């Protein structure tokens, strides 16, 4: 599936670009299409909403199904083949491990030693490690890995700009879209500012090196200036956007759009049906015994 030009937007997802009487030259249309974020594989080229739906359903279904077989099936049948197709299997594995490991370790420790059970594996001081605790921790860890990989797959194959543009084409107000995208930009900007303020404070004798205590003490004088300067910047940024008519209500004709198809729409509906079926099975207690 190829990315489409601005004058070839799918009418089902977005109105065709208005050209004000003049039409885009083929060269301009090709150029605008090139502005969309690069999408190296077929999975990357899926509509962001389709990828978001897949990640959401995988996450919710893993938690609703519980146990081992359900979440592992989602992982093996859905997430891993998609990651392989997107060429990010190893990267995703590292990402999921990094994200889920800290939570998994704490969950394991808490579950193994505090979960009541009849089969005691070993004892450390007042704590009994039970087989039931190990089983519970294992189930939680499997779910965490599925969630981390499903969400990681979405994040690693979807440019935030693509998601924002697609959501705006679907009717999300530009202000909401901007808030989502601008938040991502704010973090590196705040880190830069904190580094500059820290350098200025150090030039005036603030000790920010040495023991952990000294470093923590050094962080305190940064908090006020970083927050205040961030607030000032937010005001300037908002004024700069206002003079570019950002507050204007009504539709905007965006420069590029993302492809969608009836096949992808069908897949999204199918995912929704699957999710509803899983919820219904869990609520009514008619879940297959092997799950």
């Amino acid at each position, binding site marked *: 599936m190829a990315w489409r030009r601005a004058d070839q937007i799918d009418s089902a997802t977005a109105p065709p670009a208005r*050209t004000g009487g003049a039409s885009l030259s083929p060269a301009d249309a090709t150029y605008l299409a090139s502005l969309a974020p690069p999408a190296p594989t077929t999975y990357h080229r899926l509509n962001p909403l389709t990828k978001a739906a897949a990640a959401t359903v995988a996450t919710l279904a893993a938690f609703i199904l519980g146990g081992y077989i359900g979440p592992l099936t989602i992982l093996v049948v859905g997430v891993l083949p998609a990651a392989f197709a997107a060429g990010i299997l190893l990267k995703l594995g590292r990402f999921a491990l990094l994200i889920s490991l800290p939570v998994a370790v704490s969950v394991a420790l808490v579950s193994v030693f505090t979960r009541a059970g009849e089969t005691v594996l070993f004892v450390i001081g007042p704590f009994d490690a039970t087989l039931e605790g190990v089983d519970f921790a294992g189930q939680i860890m499997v779910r965490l890995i599925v969630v981390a990989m499903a969400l990681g797959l979405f994040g690693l194959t979807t440019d935030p700009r693509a998601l924002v543009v697609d959501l705006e084409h679907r009717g999300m107000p530009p202000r909401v879209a901007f808030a989502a995208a601008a938040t991502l930009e704010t973090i590196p900007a705040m880190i830069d500012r904190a580094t500059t303020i820290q350098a200025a404070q150090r030039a005036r004798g603030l000790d920010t090196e040495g023991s952990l205590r000294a470093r923590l003490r050094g962080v305190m004088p940064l908090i006020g200036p970083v927050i205040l300067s961030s607030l000032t910047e937010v005001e300037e940024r908002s004024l700069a956007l206002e*003079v*570019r008519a*950002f507050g204007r209500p009504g539709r905007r004709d965006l420069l590029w759009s993302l492809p969608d198809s009836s096949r992808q729409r069908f897949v999204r509906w199918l995912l929704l049906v699957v999710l509803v079926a899983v919820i219904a099975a869990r609520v009514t207690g008619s879940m297959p015994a092997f799950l």
Partner: protein
Amino acid sequence: MLELRGVAYRYPGYARSVLQDLDIAIDRHEIVGLVGPNEAGKSTLCLVAAGLAPASIGGTLTGSVLMDGKPIAGLPVHELAAWVGLVFQDPNTQRSGVTGTVFEEVALGSVNLGRPVAETVARTRSSLATLRIEHLADRDPMRLSGGQAQLVAIASILAMEPRLFILDEPTAQLDPEGTRLVGQALRRLAATGTALLIAEHKTDLLDGLCTRIIALDGGRVVLDGPADTALESDGLTGIGIQPPARVRLARAIKASGLRVPDELEQVAAGDRSA
């Protein structure tokens, strides 16, 4: 085109007005330099003229601000944006953060105005060409030098084709190279016929560019006249504004007792053909 009649402005929470009794009119195609010491009210005047004060930042405005004879009070800023463009000091805070290329960043204002794509593309290309930054079109707006980022900010306002272009110390945070780039851009902008109001400390940037100079001090107009004579006025020095290099050079030569060559006299008097 833009007229301020008896304008006074006070920021929210402040007892004192920053601007007082201002009567200023700027006509079409006029290129006006706005000078004054720190806290003279230059930035505030820019905000008032662009309709951001008090509409967006609050405060109290008395008097009237008129655009083509019609009061702008109560008009939403996004409506005024098609008439008056404002470029701020800091190029970093003017980046939208939601675009991946300079082309999209420059096009953003026109897109926001709801213009059709073909029109937006044409205006964007024209703005980039006017400022001679077409080569930056595919660059990431986050990875530009200060001067380049400021040119992109100017281009993004230019693409909206405002009738009055206000620049609030556009070179204040730039190095000499960035200042030179913006200086060249302002000359190209002036050649388009758009009215310009440029608040700037660096009188060398205004010299030869502006047709008129307005000096503010303490929120009041203390000097308003043709650029050639105003930039040589002792009144500017009196409020702490350094005159352009050509004027300082001529004064230094005279003070040293040397004879000022006729050509330099003419240059000092603003006759650049000499």
